[in-house]
């Protein structure tokens, strides 16, 4: 990628985006085939007068229900008309009808959706209500009434189908517009003094057109299906060849001449299938553009290959039989389109029972991946290997997945980073605490309830009855994190893995939660592995610390020694970055003066 590509993208995002999606679309087999089929069908429709071998309405009595022959390639229909010619002219009817429908739906639905999504207010409410009402109308009744009343005026009928399909366009355009309107760059454009029409053309339109094109492919297929259905029911002029009418005729004679049904059915099936494949392929391409799990992998991808198979970093502090956890030469890799990308390059460390080990590093250093590997819960596409992961004397890395999973919730507890997204929004707190106790620890309902309540009380929740009955969205972030801690320790694990347990919390709550973790770890004599990016947290509660950078361990040591004199410049940078600010400074001074626990009040004072 050169800079010119970037400049182009800035100059006109629409043009480059369209090119890239289109060129990627025709490079997929499904894309090129479906596009080819559709172009062929359009060509047949346009060229019908020239390529049709005969007049579609010319009756040759000798050809009635005739099998395929040199004169009639596909045979003759029940009254002796040439099937191929009728099929070719029917293509024209079908495409013309679908075109009327999608233009109607597009012209009404898409602008209404953009305006409703962009301006909101009364128009939005009115238009959304009309859209819902149209969906509530029994569409076939309306179509048949229109057909009866207008003497089967087909263009008008297909326009009516278009009106019935407007809600689909309206909803998509409105939803996309709403999303884009809330983006900061739209607010910036507005502040910069751009007029609303200009913002819509420059910013909204490029985001709306792709889903609209996909919707159009699907709507065209639906329109063709409805059209053929109406013709099958006998609506439409008998002189205009149409696939639906041919199918009706085939249906009536299907026992004697099944070919009559085959040809138009195949034509309709292939056409609609091509449209559906095109729509779904385009949809996949557009969806792939939004970054998902790939982010983590690409962040480390640059360094991955260079560092691959380097010797393991880190060190052990205890004998193998004394450690609660011993991780040996752990590597984590993610599958990416360009092959596997390693994000943790072989690290070794251990934790003793009752010890608190901090894992510190910036985002993308591989610290969370290390925790997920120990849980055997890496996101999909992720894979780890290790010479050993010993937990409570057993090498769990060699266990089958089922056996391994049994350690979760009983031997290993896990406290996640983001409290609000880590509780199932559909169940009460009480249910979520009791379910593992009942199914994993085989407690009765009453026992489970008692334990859950005791745990909630233990983590400092005052109003236990209310919290047990609450749903996650009804409690605060700090309370949710306490609930998650209660859930992690309820199974009385010997190892507790906490992934940034305070990052998402308010500063005052952070200190309380850390204090709680320290107490619990002491009380249950657990080995606690605490992942953080913040050396302040390390200073607060950790005994030892390992520093990770780009998937390697760069420093291991006692917390106080590390603070006093880190060997690595990177560690010193991290320490000074974390402790930048008055309150943290004081915290650090106290850390040096006395014991870690004394730092508490200072942090609370901040």
């Amino acid at each position, binding site marked *: 990628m050169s800079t010119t590509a970037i400049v182009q993208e800035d100059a006109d995002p629409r043009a480059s985006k369209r090119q890239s999606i289109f060129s990627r679309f025709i490079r997929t087999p499904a894309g090129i085939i479906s596009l080819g089929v559709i172009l062929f069908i359009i060509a047949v429709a346009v060229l019908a007068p020239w390529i049709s071998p005969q007049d579609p309405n010319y009756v040759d009595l000798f050809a009635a229900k005739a099998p395929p022959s040199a004169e009639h390639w596909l045979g003759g229909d029940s009254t002796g008309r040439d099937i191929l010619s009728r099929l070719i002219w029917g293509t024209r009817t079908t495409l013309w009808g679908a075109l009327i429908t999608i233009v109607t739906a597009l012209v009404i639905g898409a602008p209404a959706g953009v305006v409703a999504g962009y301006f909101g207010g009364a128009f939005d409410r009115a238009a959304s209500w009309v859209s819902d009402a149209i969906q509530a109308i029994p569409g076939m009744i309306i179509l048949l009434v229109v057909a009866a009343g207008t003497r089967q005026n087909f263009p008008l009928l297909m326009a009516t189908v278009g009106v019935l399909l407007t809600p689909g366009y309206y909803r998509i355009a409105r939803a996309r517009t709403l999303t884009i309107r809330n983006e900061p760059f739209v607010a910036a454009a507005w502040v910069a003094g751009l007029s609303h029409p200009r913002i819509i053309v420059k910013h909204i339109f490029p985001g709306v057109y792709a889903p609209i094109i996909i919707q159009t492919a699907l709507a065209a*297929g639906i329109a063709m299906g409805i059209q053929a259905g109406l013709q099958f029911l006998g609506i439409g002029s008998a002189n205009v060849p149409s696939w639906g009418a041919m199918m009706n005729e085939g249906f009536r004679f299907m026992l004697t001449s099944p070919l009559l049904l085959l040809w138009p059915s195949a034509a309709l099936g292939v056409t609609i299938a091509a449209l559906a494949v095109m729509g779904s392929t385009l949809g996949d391409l557009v969806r792939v553009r939004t970054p998902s799990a790939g982010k983590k992998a690409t962040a480390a991808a640059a360094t991955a290959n260079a560092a691959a198979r380097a010797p393991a970093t880190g060190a052990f502090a205890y004998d193998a039989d004394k450690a609660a956890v011993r991780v040996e030469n752990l590597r984590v890799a993610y599958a990416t389109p360009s092959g596997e990308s390693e994000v943790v390059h072989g690290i070794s460390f251990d934790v003793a029972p009752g010890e608190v080990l901090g894992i510190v590093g910036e985002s993308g250093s591989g610290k969370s991946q290390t925790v997920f590997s120990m849980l055997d819960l890496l996101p999909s596409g992720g894979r780890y290997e290790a010479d050993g992961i010993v937990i409570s004397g057993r090498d769990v890395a060699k266990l089958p997945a089922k056996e391994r999973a049994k350690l979760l919730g009983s031997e290993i507890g896990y406290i996640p980073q983001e409290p609000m997204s880590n509780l199932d929004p559909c169940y009460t707190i009480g249910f979520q605490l009791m379910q593992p106790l009942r199914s994993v620890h085989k407690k009765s309902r009453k026992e489970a309830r008692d334990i859950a309540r005791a745990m909630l009380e233990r983590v400092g929740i005052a109003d236990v009855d209310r919290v047990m009955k609450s749903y996650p969205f009804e409690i605060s972030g700090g309370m949710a994190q306490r609930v998650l801690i209660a859930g992690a320790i309820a199974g009385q694990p010997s190892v507790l893995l906490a992934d940034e347990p305070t990052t998402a919390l308010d500063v005052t709550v952070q200190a309380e939660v850390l204090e709680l973790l320290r107490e619990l770890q002491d009380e249950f004599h657990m080995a606690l592995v605490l992942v953080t990016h913040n050396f302040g947290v390390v200073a607060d509660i950790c005994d030892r610390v390992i520093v990770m950078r780009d998937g390697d361990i760069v420093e291991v040591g006692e917390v106080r020694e590390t603070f006093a004199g880190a060997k690595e410049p990177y560690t010193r940078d991290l320490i000074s970055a974390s402790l930048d600010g008055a309150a943290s400074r004081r915290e650090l001074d106290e850390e040096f003066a006395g014991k870690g626990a004394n730092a508490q009040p200072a942090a609370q004072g901040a």
Partner: protein
Amino acid sequence: MIAFIAKRLAAGVVLLVAVSVGTFFLAHTAITDPTVGLLGTTATEAQREALTIKLGLDRPLIVQFWDWFSHAAIGDFGTSWRNFQSVNDQIAIKLPVTLSVVSFATLLTAFFGITLGMIAGLNPNSMLDRMSKGITVVLFALPGFWVSLVLVIWFAVNLRWFPAVGYVQPTQSITGWLRSITLPAVSLSLMGIVVVAEQLRNEVIAVNKQDFVRTLRSRGLSQGQVIIHILRNACPAALTMLAIMFVSLLSGAIVVEAIFSLPGIGQLINSSSQIGDIPVLLGITVVSVIFVVIVNFLLDIALGWINPKVRVK
């Protein structure tokens, strides 16, 4: 809760009135002289005039509307212009046929759509996911009546497993009834299965990526228990699709009913619209919209039960 029900009920009544008024005037605008359809083109001018007076079509449209609306409001949809039978009775005879076929189709859709969507969503990009995606695209492509034709030829004509046409009352024979509605229900369900499966697959993939699923696993829950958590979070969109499908099929199964010669609502719509029997069409429209209102109401309650956060809004 009472406020919620009252609000939904009021919104339903408004929708009902709006659609009724809209359909009434649309029908009378589209079908300018109903006597043409009712008497055919061979009728004399005098016959036409007599019928016009008999049906009250000589009155101003707004008077006709009020006459119809005031009766419909108390549940009386008047009499058919074709045979002067009660519209209510005609709908009451035809509705059970359509309801049984459509309910069966919805059950099939729910079962197969949810199973396929779950499997594909839990194993994205697996062989099975790709296969079901292929089937999805193909099934979506084919209109329901197209599939009906294939099913009739294959299972009814060639294999003779099911009757090709006709309807058996459940009071006559339960198995006969089931056999008579199986093929139509299957052909109506295919499109829905595809839509529900696709919808659920995408939702399952999205939910599966959420943090709380990892946390649930970390608590030691079994795969089955975790799947139930995922399903509950993922199902609202698919459930909405099911509801939409059910109500749209009540009046949208016309072609399939015609192929299988089922004496249901679709057939009544088809025959009534061909001759312009407006009272029957209006009656069916109102009944369909009543179903829309009821089903949407039940859907809201179900969605609120599934995800309590929705309840608050």
